[in-house]
């Protein structure tokens, strides 16, 4: 009876451990790319890069959609902190730098299909340099 009780407790503890969320590993990274909104750009519902999409990217960041850095090879890093700014939804600092080409140093935590980035230092901010409006107009409404 005692063995049964101990086995039951051990099974419960094992179940509890399995049910805990896995603690993701973090690593130090340097990421270079364009700040984009994490909906239009990922879903491809419109052309969503550079000058053509700047206004829409500003709308989305002001609306609280997460901002990501999109690298040249198409990877997305969802930004959850920029230096001392620990609010990351509709933060005016995030809104002001939409579409900028940046190079940042930060902590990367990957979990369940998302690369989350906590930026410790913005190393370079070139502003908006991806000139896409001549070909794509103003997305998505043309004004």
């Amino acid at each position, binding site marked *: 009876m005692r063995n049964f009780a101990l086995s039951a407790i051990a099974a419960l503890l094992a179940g509890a451990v399995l049910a805990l969320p896995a603690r993701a590993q973090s690593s130090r990274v340097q990421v270079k790319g364009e700040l984009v909104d994490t909906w239009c750009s990922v879903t491809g519902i419109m052309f969503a890069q550079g000058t*053509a999409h700047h206004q*829409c990217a500003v709308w989305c960041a002001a609306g609280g959609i997460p901002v990501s850095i999109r690298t040249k090879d198409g990877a997305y890093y*969802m930004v959850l902190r920029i230096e001392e700014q620990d609010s990351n939804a509709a933060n005016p600092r995030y809104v*002001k730098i939409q579409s900028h080409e940046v190079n940042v140093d930060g902590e990367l935590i990957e979990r369940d299909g*998302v690369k989350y980035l906590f930026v410790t230092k913005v190393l370079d901010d070139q502003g908006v340099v991806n000139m896409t409006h001549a070909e794509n107009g*103003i997305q998505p409404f043309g004004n």
Partner: protein
Amino acid sequence: MKSLFNFAVVMAALTASPVRAADAWGIEHEKVVELTGRVVDIACTLKGDCPPNCGDGKRQLGLLAADGKLRAVVKGPVDFAGPVRDLVAFCGRSVQVDGLLVENPAIHIVQIQNIREKAEQPWARALAFEIDWQAKNGKAEEWYREDKVVKEVIGADGVYGVKGLAPPPPEKK
């Protein structure tokens, strides 16, 4: 009068139906889903940096499922707006949402359309952003053109984000 009543019944069913299913958008990698999970502040879950009440609307939020899977919820049904204000009302509690799970190989994200706390409750459209914005700023056809921060940023740098670079004036007819 009867047709007006019928219209009201249909609208009520559309906005609070227990059998409502989310709309597909035809996005590559999308699945129409119902998800259940605890509302969490993503940065808090990943790093233990936890302001009160999931950041009170200033933090990106996600759903943490019973199996430990964390889903980043990035979009709601309001144009150009996220779902933070819908979710933060349930900080730390379990909710059901329906919407789109987009498992793009580059990043996995969720758009929610409707939300409820329990299965027996009717779905509610996730419109908190619009409701809160209008309460603070008044009615607007297009909130995103009237928002104070948007006006400041676009006013300073223009629609292309580059000072001095502007679209040509519309041609005279």
